[in-house]
């Protein structure tokens, strides 16, 4: 177990009568890359601003590197922050932007020059040092913004949707670059995004948030394969998970919907128990289209349309009264109206209680 870098304890934040963060707890290990993921308004950026000290919290404590920084100034917390809009000072050159924080800390000029040079080398912005932000492209600006956090030589990097303002190609380039930066510097990084691809590719652990509460905090693969509740299951994955509404019967050994019975044998959640209302979650890639029915393992379905997406193809079907999508190799074309059967890989499935929305 490595040392704890950031520890958030019972953090609560209210804006007037509105509760934005609700007794939130989060521990981040040293060198860990945590992604805060969630839809707009879930409180992820708010949490990041609290960590940075840009918002005064209502209750709770924030510890960074073993120090209680709950009421410390942003500059005293040992953090560097990168913003969505880059937030570069327009009237200063790149060099001025990078050294502004160091000058405020009254650092000797020689040390400032050394640090700026190092950051410029790491981020490959050396030739841009004497330009103003207005003369830079979006990708270059975001590099400078990262550089501004880098020169501070801090333990914790905070990223507030840093790639959202970039076009798709630049976004994937910089995503790789951030990952490379992390493996080189080994800092603790907290990264806010609403883009699940960024979350899945970058994170050591993802915290999926909704309504000011962390819904699930786990490694990307666990979040993807074993979502803790219906919200996480529906939010992660594109195309999203298929949900079948039915009931668990036979003492929790089978799932029944519209007269079709599926055996829950092999389900990794353990004993499910009998529930009058349950939801079976199946990812499109965990279904297979077969020709013949296998009792207890397949669902009859009718093909509606298919969407070739380059590497593979997405087939939409009508099955047991629900619309479902299945991922198939792109060569496999299915005629509209074809009657097929879907074989379920129950080891990869998720079962949720329809009432509590929790995974069982």
């Amino acid at each position, binding site marked *: 177990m490595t040392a704890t870098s950031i520890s958030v304890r019972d953090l609560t934040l209210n804006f007037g009568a509105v509760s934005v963060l609700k007794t939130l707890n989060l521990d981040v290990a040293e060198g860990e890359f945590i992604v805060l993921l969630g839809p707009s308004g879930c409180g992820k950026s708010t949490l990041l*601003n609290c960590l*940075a*000290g*840009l918002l005064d919290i209502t209750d709770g404590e924030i510890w960074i590197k073993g120090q209680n920084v709950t009421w410390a*100034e*942003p*500059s005293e917390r040992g*953090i*560097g*922050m990168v*913003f*969505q*809009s*880059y*937030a*570069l*000072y*327009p*009237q200063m050159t790149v060099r001025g932007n990078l050294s*502004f*924080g160091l000058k*405020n*800390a009254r650092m000797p000029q020689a040390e400032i020059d050394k640090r700026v040079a190092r950051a410029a080398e790491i981020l490959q912005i050396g030739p841009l040092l004497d330009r103003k932000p207005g003369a830079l492209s979006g990708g270059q600006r975001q590099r400078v913004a990262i550089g*501004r956090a880098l020169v*501070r030589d801090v333990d914790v990097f905070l990223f507030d949707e840093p790639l959202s303002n970039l076009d798709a190609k630049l976004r994937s380039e910089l995503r790789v670059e951030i990952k490379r930066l992390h493996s080189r510097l080994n800092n603790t990084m907290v990264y806010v995004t609403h883009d699940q691809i960024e979350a899945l590719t970058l994170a050591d652990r993802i915290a999926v948030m909704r309504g000011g509460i962390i819904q699930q905090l786990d490694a990307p693969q666990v979040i993807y394969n074993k979502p803790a509740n219906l919200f996480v299951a529906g939010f992660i994955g594109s195309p999203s998970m298929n949900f079948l509404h039915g009931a668990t019967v036979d003492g929790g050994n089978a799932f029944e919907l519209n007269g079709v019975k599926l055996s829950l044998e092999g389900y990794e959640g353990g004993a499910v128990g009998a529930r009058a209302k349950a939801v079976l979650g199946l990812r499109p890639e965990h279904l297979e289209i077969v020709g013949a029915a296998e009792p207890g393992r397949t669902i009859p379905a009718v093909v509606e349309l298919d969407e070739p997406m380059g590497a593979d193809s997405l087939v939409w079907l009508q099955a047991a009264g629900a619309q479902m999508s299945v991922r198939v190799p792109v060569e496999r074309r299915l005629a509209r109206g074809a009657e097929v059967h879907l074989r379920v890989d129950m080891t990869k499935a998720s079962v949720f209680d329809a009432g509590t929305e929790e995974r069982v």
Partner: protein
Amino acid sequence: MTGQGPRGAKPRRRLSGRNIMLYGTLLFVSLYYLLPLWVMVMTSLKGMPEIRMGNIFAPPVEVTFQPWVKAWAEACTGLNCDGLSRGFWNSVRILIPSVILSILVASVNGYALVNWRFKGSDVFFTVLIFGSFIPYQIMLYPIVILLREMGIYGTLWGLVLVHTIFGMPILTLLFRNYFSSLPEELFKAARVDGAGFWAIYFRIMLPMSLPIFVVAIILQVTGIWNDFLFGVVYTKPELYPMTVQLNNIVNSVQGVKEYNVNMAATLLTGLVPLIVYFVSGKLFVRGIAAGAVKG
């Protein structure tokens, strides 16, 4: 519509009825507004005998600058006979500290109201704006008492203080709106970079705020220069600003009415705001628009 035939907007004749109407109206209105200026300039360049002949619209037969010289250096108000020059310099001495002080305080006000919101900052702002809806006349006498108690009644600094206070609502509103249009993340980034209240104000905000400062300067220079009420109430005769002195010259009831001197004096007094508008007209419009986008 058929696919055949000419495309694009219908070509217009330059001398269409619409254009004649439009430009005719514009021309008429401009002439109407320029006429008084024409009369003033012409009259100020005439001698008194020529003025007595009537015909105020006619250009001078004999051009003389004597009225201008007299208005500036010789016209009498009360016991002083050194013309408007005394009032001019008084106005300058009132104007410069008032403009600097009011803009300095208001810009910091606006910056603090946007970026360093404190408990009750909204109430503070509302009260401040409310102040601009109260008629000046109601506050005239209470302020006399306040200034007297402070021992600066009848002094230049008393008037400077009054101008600074009365400029506060509109200027604070102006700066607040402008600062709230600047990206908030810049302010956050500067805080993470360890800059404090004044460092952010001077190093980050000020360099980005030139247009709004120009607007504020124009508003204040013209407003304070044109002020009559505060000048006449809160100062003494030897400290009267130019507007008050102009009034005293023009409205003097003794002797002959020297229309040419009066006209020259009026033009001299109006010169400062006029120059300000001509020099900065474009910036003024731009700044007002910039401040108006976000409220």
